């Protein structure tokens, strides 16, 4: 899957404002976190499947933990995608727009993104608080069920910051970095080791 591989999360560019520096730090941290989550999901489910089949036991709560991690990946990853303009988008028509119109369109899109993020931040915050308050636990793990829902206010909160940064950047006349969503940033290099024959 190559349509959105932001290989460089920390673009250099003229769009520096007071929000950009802290956001870059967050980018770095959350990039590592989502990657670690993917590896963790893989290992948990792998261990579970094999343990169940060969040793007749399963890690209790492994399945639920994997789901929880996936939910966090969704919203943290979504923040990173906003940062790099890498969400899936149909841009066949917008490519036809002249420069000035496309700046206005970008501004409106960021504004829409900001509003929807605020909407879900508020709802998600509300939901998380309610569920924390109700004292519900996960069905197989000794943690509060609210951890599932906390991902929404956290992810949406970060997206709010990302959209504000982009709006500021557009307002001060600096453009958004254009990440050509459907073309890989660079050809994936397919190298074949010289040791092809040796390790047959």
């Amino acid at each position: 899957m190559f349509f959105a591989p932001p290989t460089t999360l920390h673009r250099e560019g003229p769009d520096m404002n007071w929000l950009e520096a802290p956001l870059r730090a967050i980018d770095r941290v959350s990039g590592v976190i989502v990657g670690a989550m993917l590896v963790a999901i893989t290992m948990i489910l792998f261990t579970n499947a094999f343990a169940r089949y060969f040793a007749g036991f399963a890690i209790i709560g492994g399945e639920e933990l994997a789901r929880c991690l996936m939910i966090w990946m969704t919203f943290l990853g979504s923040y990173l995608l906003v940062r790099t303009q890498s969400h899936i988008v149909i841009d066949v028509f917008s490519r036809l727009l002249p420069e000035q119109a496309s700046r206005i369109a970008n501004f409106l899109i960021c504004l829409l993104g900001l509003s929807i993020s605020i909407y879900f931040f508020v709802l998600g915050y509300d939901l998380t608080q309610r569920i924390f308050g109700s004292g519900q636990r996960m069905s197989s793990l000794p943690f509060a069920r609210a951890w599932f829902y906390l991902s929404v206010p956290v992810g949406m909160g970060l997206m709010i910051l990302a959209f504000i940064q982009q709006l500021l950047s557009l307002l001060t006349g600096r453009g958004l970095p254009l990440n050509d969503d459907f073309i890989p940033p660079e050809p994936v290099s397919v190298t074949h080791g010289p040791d092809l024959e040796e390790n047959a």
Partner: protein
Amino acid sequence: MAASVLIAIVTVLLVGAVPIYLAILAATVISFEVFGPPMPSVVLAQRLVEGVNIFSILAVPLFVYAADIVSRGEIGTRLVKLMESLVGHITGGLAVATVLTCALFGAISGIGAAAIVSIGPIVYPSLIRHGYSKGFAIGLILTASTLSMLIPPSVAMILYSVQVSVSIAQVFLAGLAAGLVFVAALSIYCVIYAVRHGIGHNKRATRSEQFRSFRRALIPMGLPVLIFGGIYGGVFTPTEAAAAACVYAMIVETLVFRHLTLFDLLKLSRESSITIATLLILIAAGSTMTWFMTLEQVPAMLALLLGDVPGVVVLLAINVLVLIIGMFIDPNSAVIVLSPLIAPSAAAVGIDSIHLGAIMVFNLAIGMITPPFGLNIFIGMRTFRASYGEVVKNVLPFIAIALLALLLITYIPQLVMWLPGIGS
């Protein structure tokens, strides 16, 4: 009313280049707040989470990750050598071997573009050397790569199964059958092309050469065996099979072939997880929209509307609709958004949901190679350093073949359904 407003808003936003997840969420929120039932809005946030709180969806990140590992590694080369030694001696053999390698690669990878970068650069020079034109080689590789979407494991098929609530194992089998039809169609075309252009063939590989390439392909072949054997032998759920495939690919590429380092894997995990998030957020947003549509009884109304239309016409309409949408939207997003709307109506006129899965994914696979926006076209331009026009022109005959195969699997359901029939 609410539904038509919602669809209108989504369409306007999509055309205006609003990211798909945002367009769906915005339209749902507006429709819900204006026309929705008197419910606290907090249910929307809850739907957003519950949409990705599903065990079978875990197969999506895992198969994407596995495909990412495999396509950077060495597995492709070994599969090519195997197929070349098996069918290289017939007329058009090298082209047929390309198709078969892509099919085999499809049994490892679940997304329709990975084969271009991992098989393409290996077979392309060799096809040119044997006298195939540059255009034919590009068209063939880009088209055969879409087999990964049909042949299980397939991310699009998993998404379809989750959205429509049918068995992933059954939809996989339907996809496999459809993939075999497509393999046959492509292979026949390759042979005809080679005969008409007087392209020679290799010497038949000796038994020992065949054995040698088979032995070298043994480790990569363990992947499909693990995935298929695991799922259909009742050892794994598809999700667990995906996790096992990831770990197998990690071990093979780092420890056995030593093609990737542990650090590469970690770097890859970050890239993959960000790619995966594009799908997960769409699933979450899509489930919010589907929830609202179902609340407004849209699928039921659509089904009622189509009640008297013969199945043949509905199938044609579905094909045209999905094909056109597939030209503009990437396949996985299209499955997430469309299948909950289409499947109930199709079921109402007697179209089997498993069969429908194969048809929809086939359509979207064709969308990968159709202009203006097929992803494979762009990846092909990069990989083979060709211009947009050049690629599009050469992919056209293959689109015709694909449409022919699509017609076959649409109107002769037995071509697809015999395999799930055995499996059940």
